[in-house]
């Protein structure tokens, strides 16, 4: 029986791990930028440092972990095997890392050459990733809402990256495009169609599996990804034809659909069979609360557009959705994925003769909970800094650096524990 557990030709741990260990460094860079820039970063969503920090988080942190996790998880959740996962990781990781750095520096110093170079690097890297995953998913029928969600999310990524490249070209070449409208659309596709749909597709599997909740009901699970993409198409068409009411309607409906998903997840979590509240559960509770808060802001602004013009509104929305929402979901999932993958590989190392240690021996819940408190404190400080930037911008930056440094320390600690246990298992096998 034990031998059968090594059934899975799991991609080597090195494939996703490089992404997971790089992501906290980018978040620390965003925190450092805030520490250096101070209140200026909260002046406007369009300031160079704010654009750089936003992309350090969305590309440097979120996309790093999402792509790394997908390389690992596609065979498990979709039965789609990448032909050479480690080779894909070796191409995507440096492309995304260098592209993100170039883009951030390009924003910060207003360097057209860097913006163009970054756009070329990011488009080719994302294109390669989409080609590799598309090939693996080709011929895999959409037998579950997760598989349909994955396919639609990848389409969302393609549009988000395409719009991003168009914006970078427009900035670098001075093309006369409607930059605010295009930027909103780029963010909508990136955060709604890509990150939001991907999150839901993963949640359908990981929330019941790791938090022992009931499953997501079939009908809304099938419809959520389709509804998100349809609404983004509506928003795009309305933007193309300059129909303001259509754009606002699509944004408002996207907020409602997103809040419905978050509300359903909260309801399922309340019915969970696991009495203990571990770090992942708490991270998800924080994330869901923040997403509902951010989407409520979006909904109110779609009804009363003047609100979005209020000082601080875009930053409240951005901090709530990115730091409170997506970062919380992602770290919460990492705290299950990293110990589980380590356990799986140790199980295989033991060759059914030496058992793998329990997952909490690889990363303790106490270490995760403490890091989570720092993340929550950094999030609250960031929100407060939107209101009182002169006082709180730098403390918020420092807290954000600390929270992500701690995350990195936890992940490195898990890797040390993994190596120690692997050596112990090898020694025990040799002695048999």
């Amino acid at each position, binding site marked *: 029986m034990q031998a059968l557990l090594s059934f899975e030709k799991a991609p080597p741990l090195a494939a996703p791990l490089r992404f997971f260990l790089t992501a906290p460094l980018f978040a620390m860079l965003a925190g450092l930028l805030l520490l250096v820039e101070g209140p200026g970063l909260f002046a406007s969503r369009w300031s160079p440092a704010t654009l750089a920090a936003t992309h350090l988080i969305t590309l440097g942190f979120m996309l790093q972990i999402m792509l790394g996790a997908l390389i690992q998880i596609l065979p498990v959740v979709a039965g789609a095997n990448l032909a050479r996962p480690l080779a894909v990781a070796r191409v995507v990781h440096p492309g995304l890392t260098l592209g993100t750095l170039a883009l951030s520096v390009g924003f910060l110093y207003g360097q057209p050459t860097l913006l163009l170079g970054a756009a070329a690097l990011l488009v080719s890297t994302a294109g390669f990733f989409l080609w590799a995953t598309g090939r693996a998913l080709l011929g895999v029928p959409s*037998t579950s809402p997760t598989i349909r969600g994955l396919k639609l999310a990848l389409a969302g990524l393609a549009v988000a990256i395409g719009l991003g490249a168009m914006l970078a070209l427009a900035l670098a070449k001075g093309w006369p495009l409607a930059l605010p409208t295009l930027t909103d659309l780029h963010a909508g596709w990136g955060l709604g169609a890509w990150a939001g749909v991907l999150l839901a597709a993963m949640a*359908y599997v990981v929330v019941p599996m790791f938090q022992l909740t009931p499953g997501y009901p079939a009908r809304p699970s099938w419809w959520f990804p389709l509804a998100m993409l349809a609404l983004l198409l509506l928003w795009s068409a309305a933007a193309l034809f300059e129909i303001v009411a259509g754009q606002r309607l699509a944004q408002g409906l996207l907020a409602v659909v997103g809040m419905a998903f978050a509300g359903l997840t909260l309801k399922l979590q309340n019915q969970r069979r696991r009495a203990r509240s571990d770090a992942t559960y708490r991270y998800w509770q924080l994330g869901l609360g923040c997403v509902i808060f951010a989407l409520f802001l979006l909904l109110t602004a779609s009804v009363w557009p003047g609100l979005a013009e209020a000082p601080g509104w875009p930053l409240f929305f951005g901090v709530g959705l990115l730091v409170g929402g997506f970062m919380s979901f992602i770290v919460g999932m990492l705290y299950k994925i990293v110990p589980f993958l380590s356990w799986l590989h140790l199980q295989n190392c033991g060759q059914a003769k030496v058992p793998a240690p329990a997952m909490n021996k690889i990363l303790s819940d106490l270490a995760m909970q403490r890091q989570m408190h720092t993340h929550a404190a950094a999030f609250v400080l960031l929100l407060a800094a939107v209101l009182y930037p002169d006082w709180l911008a730098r403390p918020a930056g420092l807290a954000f650096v600390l929270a992500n440094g701690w995350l990195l320390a936890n992940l490195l600690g898990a890797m040390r524990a993994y190596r120690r246990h692997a050596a112990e298992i090898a020694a025990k096998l040799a002695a048999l």
Partner: protein
Amino acid sequence: MTHPKTPHVVDARFMEPPEPFVKTMEMLDTLQKGEKMLLLLYREPHPLYKVLRQNGHVYETELVADGTFEILITC
């Protein structure tokens, strides 16, 4: 637990991995060739599918309204 599709059921909906896999393989060990068993899960178990195919088992999956995947496996 029994089910209209078969009396041999593993309800793994509130089990953590790898328990659903282990319980399914254990039940398959007890069945005669041609007998059917049902695995209930809130996800599609793709790694298990692969092992089932390798071992020559046939399976059919149905997603029902409450989000349960009913996987009917022929031994």
